[in-house]
């Protein structure tokens, strides 16, 4: 039994070796395929890892770029905020400036050079008009024109106008151009010709400047119809018939009534009609025993051709006003009445945006001697370099039978230069 035990161990070893020799190649083959598989898995993993790393890099880059962009936007935001802050501060500064509530201000210079056959030449500094306008409060606005001429400086107009009266009413008070006629209440530099027609100067006393009060009523009609009632110390810038500074009986004031209407004949054609009267019950200077009533009437008619599509460079305006003055006066202690008729007509043709031309006919009687009159004929050409800069040339031939002033007769030539700075408007009545 000892022999088998002796051989058992080598036998077992030999069997084991044989088995190992037989199965080793198969085992080796199996292991190698697993390794291959593992290798391919690892390769796959490596590739995925590579991709993941690339993606991470890409995301990193994107994050950096986004972060840069965010920073950039932040900077822009800061800059914009700073800029808005600056603008806000600037607006606040403007709003809180002492000038913030100052009125609109402007100035008009009206100068001309003239040659008159009977009076000679002259450089005429006619007017430097400073205009101011603003709202007073929710109920009124105010405007003023202070005029400097070669004769001095004076307040041409300074008036308050209501803005919120009921029943279509508007009230005005102070010094202003009374609502008589059309051109009598227009400042001279706003006229389509160089000089105010002599008929207005003689019959009204120049522009209708008046110290007083006016009430306007707009009729609730489908067409434009407006009425004015007024009471004044006197009407007329150069009216010497009444002493404007003295308190006196109310019969020595001037009372006005006016009706003004307008019709569109078509889109391009229109007509405007007005009738005015100014009545003074007793025209008498303080201290004077003499005097009587005075009635001044006027009718004004204006036709306009304003082709809407070309209003800027085409158009025709024809206007006419007729005045009648009837006044009582004392002659050798006897009351007498004298009547005078006068007026003007004009036509203006717009040739282009800058150029226009026209003709003025003026019939001006002497109020004190109605039989004597001056008749003027004035062609004119206007060059508007811009809305605020204008040159005008005018020739006037005047047949003067009144002979009160050398400037009124003969042949006259004018070159007028009118310029505007700042805000300037004479509103609806000055249109």
């Amino acid at each position, binding site marked *: 039994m000892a022999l088998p035990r002796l051989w058992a161990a080598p036998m077992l070893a030999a069997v084991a070796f044989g088995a190992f020799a037989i199965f080793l190649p198969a085992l080796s083959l199996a292991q190698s395929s697993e390794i291959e598989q593992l290798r391919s898995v690892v390769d796959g993993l490596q590739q995925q890892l590579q991709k993941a790393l690339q993606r991470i890099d890409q995301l990193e880059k994107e994050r950096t770029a986004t972060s840069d962009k965010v920073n950039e936007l932040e900077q822009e935001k800061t800059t914009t905020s700073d800029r808005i802050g600056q603008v806000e501060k600037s607006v606040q500064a403007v709003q809180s400036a002492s000038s913030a509530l100052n009125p609109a201000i402007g100035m008009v210079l009206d100068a001309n050079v003239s040659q008159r056959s009977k009076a000679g030449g002259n450089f005429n500094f006619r007017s430097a008009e400073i205009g101011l306008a603003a709202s007073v409060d929710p109920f009124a606005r105010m405007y003023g024109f202070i005029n400097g001429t070669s004769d001095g400086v004076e307040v041409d107009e300074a008036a308050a106008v209501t803005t919120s009266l009921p029943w279509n009413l508007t009230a005005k008070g102070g010094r202003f151009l009374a609502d008589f006629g059309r051109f009598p209440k227009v400042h001279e530099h706003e006229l389509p010709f160089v000089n105010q027609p002599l008929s207005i100067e003689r019959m009204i006393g120049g522009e209708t400047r008046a110290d007083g009060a006016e009430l306007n009523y*707009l009729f609730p009609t489908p067409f434009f119809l407006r009425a004015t009632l007024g009471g004044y110390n006197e009407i007329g810038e150069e009216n010497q018939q009444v002493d404007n500074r003295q308190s006196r009986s109310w019969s020595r004031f001037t009372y006005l009534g006016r009706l003004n209407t307008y019709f569109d004949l078509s889109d391009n054609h*229109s007509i405007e009609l007005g009738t005015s009267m100014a009545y003074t019950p007793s025209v008498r200077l303080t201290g004077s025993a003499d005097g009587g009533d005075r009635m001044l009437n006027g009718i004004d008619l204006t036709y306009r051709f*304003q082709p809407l*599509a070309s209003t800027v460079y085409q158009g025709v305006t024809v206007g006419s006003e007729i005045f009648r003055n009837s006044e009582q006066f004392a002659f050798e202690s006897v009351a007498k009445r004298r009547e005078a008729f006068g007026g003007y007509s004009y036509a203006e043709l717009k040739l*282009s*945006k800058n150029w226009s031309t026209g003709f003025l006919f003026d019939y001006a009687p002497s109020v004190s001697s109605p039989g004597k009159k001056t008749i003027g004929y004035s062609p004119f050409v206007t060059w508007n370099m811009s*809305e*605020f800069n204008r040159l005008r040339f005018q020739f006037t031939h005047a047949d003067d039978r009144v002979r009160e002033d050398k400037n009124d007769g003969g042949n006259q030539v004018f070159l007028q230069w009118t310029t505007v700075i700042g805000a300037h408007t004479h509103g609806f009545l000055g*249109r």
Partner: protein
Amino acid sequence: MNIFLKIAKWQIITIILVAAGTYCRAALAQPIRVVATFPDLADITRQIGKNLVSVESLATGVEDPHGVPMKPSFVPRLNRANVLVVTGLDDEHSWLPALLEVASNPKILLGQPGYIDCSVGVPVLEAPTRLDRAEGDLHPKGNPHYLLDPTYGKIAAQNIAAGLARSFPQYQADFDKNLKAYLGELDNWISRWEKIAAPLRGVKYVEYHPEWVYFANHFGLKRVGSIELKPGIEPTPNHLVELVQQIKQEKALVLIYGSQNPRIPQQLQGETGIKVLRLYTSAGARSETDTYIKWIDYTVRSLVQAVS
């Protein structure tokens, strides 16, 4: 007798009550009277207000917006208006303020609820950096022709809806509903115009007066120059010579003018061969442009046709 008197008394009271009721109903049923300064604003207001409003435009659309005649016949219309709709940015400065002075209607004065300024909220272009008339007839608040960009037409519509609701809050829901529908319609048109107007991108143009910047910005046109020396100032001969050179050098394709005199555009067309187009800066100037949408559509198509 006493009974007859009582019956008569009650009859009179009944008649008065019925009459008062009828009057109140009539007053309530009356549409809101709106006056708009230009036909495009009038049309947008009609779209927002529908049958609640009766809208009139003062200008017809062919006028120079800065030179609309100051007709006294506008005064009664302004006097009766419940609401006034304006372009704003001083577009109407030369004629509207003087009319409002005599219209005796405090409800529609600047700052009142009945005054609707359509420019509120518009990103304004060309606001002058230097306020000096040496730079021409400036608009201190910026270029007022923003309605030529339909995007800003939407802002105008929003302002009109808000303004109408301010004066008539009882109809706010109607205005909001109509506004939403109109804005949707405008959005559809805007996408359509942007497609149609693709050929306009990069096109160089010359204008008579600086009116087209908003349109150009939206549709990608490039301005080469203006006939006017400065805004509102007619050109000098030297300026025209320079402009001719500029048109040739820059190869400008189209010259746009509106209510201005056609003499100079035609002269430039003769000298340079540039295409000249008369396009108005408001709706209503032509029968086919009687609404805001039709006007922009006509403008876009005319320009595309001119450059293609």
